[in-house]
């Protein structure tokens, strides 16, 4: 499959999610869905990553971690918010420790709704993220 000219790498960070969306992100890497078909690789190092996949919302504690990871990623970079929690706070928006969606802290490019977001939606989101990345790259080049 070669309709993407590059192979973007993904960094996954779990904000205060319930695990549901993280597992679905991991499920995307497993044989049935296999996002590696798109040349996408899951990495643990922010300096290697092009796409930041965030699940779960931000709370008082992890705000700086999310900011940190985002800052360390090289430009151009894209943020994909996965799940209702990451998009807007979801069901936890009314919890006292939750600040809201990821877009309260860093600019989000793609919103993947659902609770839990299905692997198919996550793949759609990643594909949109790759498109956004290409667009940004053109702009900076």
């Amino acid at each position, binding site marked *: 499959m070669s309709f993407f000219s590059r192979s973007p790498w993904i960094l996954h960070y779990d904000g205060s999610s319930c695990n549901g969306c993280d597992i679905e992100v991991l499920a995307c890497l497993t044989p049935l869905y296999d996002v590696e*078909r798109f040349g996408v690789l899951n990495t643990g190092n922010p300096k290697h990553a092009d796409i930041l996949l965030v699940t779960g919302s931000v709370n008082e504690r992890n705000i700086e971690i999310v900011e940190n990871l985002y800052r360390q990623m090289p430009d151009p970079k894209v943020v994909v918010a996965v799940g*209702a929690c990451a*998009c807007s706070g979801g069901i936890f928006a009314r919890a006292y420790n939750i600040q809201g969606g990821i877009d309260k802290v860093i600019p989000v490019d793609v*919103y993947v709704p659902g609770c839990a977001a299905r692997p198919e939606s996550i793949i759609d989101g990643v594909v949109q993220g790759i498109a956004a990345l290409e667009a940004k790259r053109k702009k900076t080049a």
Partner: protein
Amino acid sequence: MPNPLKLPMIPRALRNLVSKPATRRYPFEIRPRFAGARGTIEFDVETCNYCMLCARRCPAAAITVSREERTWAIEQLTCIACGVCVDVCSKHSLSMSVNSRAVHLRSEVGPQGQRPGHEEWHKPAPAATDIPAVAGVPAPAASQGA
């Protein structure tokens, strides 16, 4: 199978080599959803009587209903697809479709800070004669996104 080399993964690996791949090539090969899967909330503006029950019972507070302005709105990004609103609506205006929600982009953020995934319906009040719907006021199409 006797396995003198103590490499128990070998039979499995050989079997996998000849069987067909487990991967579903997603964007090109889409498996239909199971009937009864919980996907997206769909709304029928014609039948709703703005009783606000769905908004009160929604655990994620994703629905806002205004009886005065006769608007019904849902944040698709907040909805957790629990199905409570579908159960409580006595007018059966709400239904749960099996399709998962669409992915939204930042470009959809509206001018007034309207969030992507915000869907709003508005139905003008029926004519003062109180004869419903036949007055021939077609509901405006749902304004999607911003």
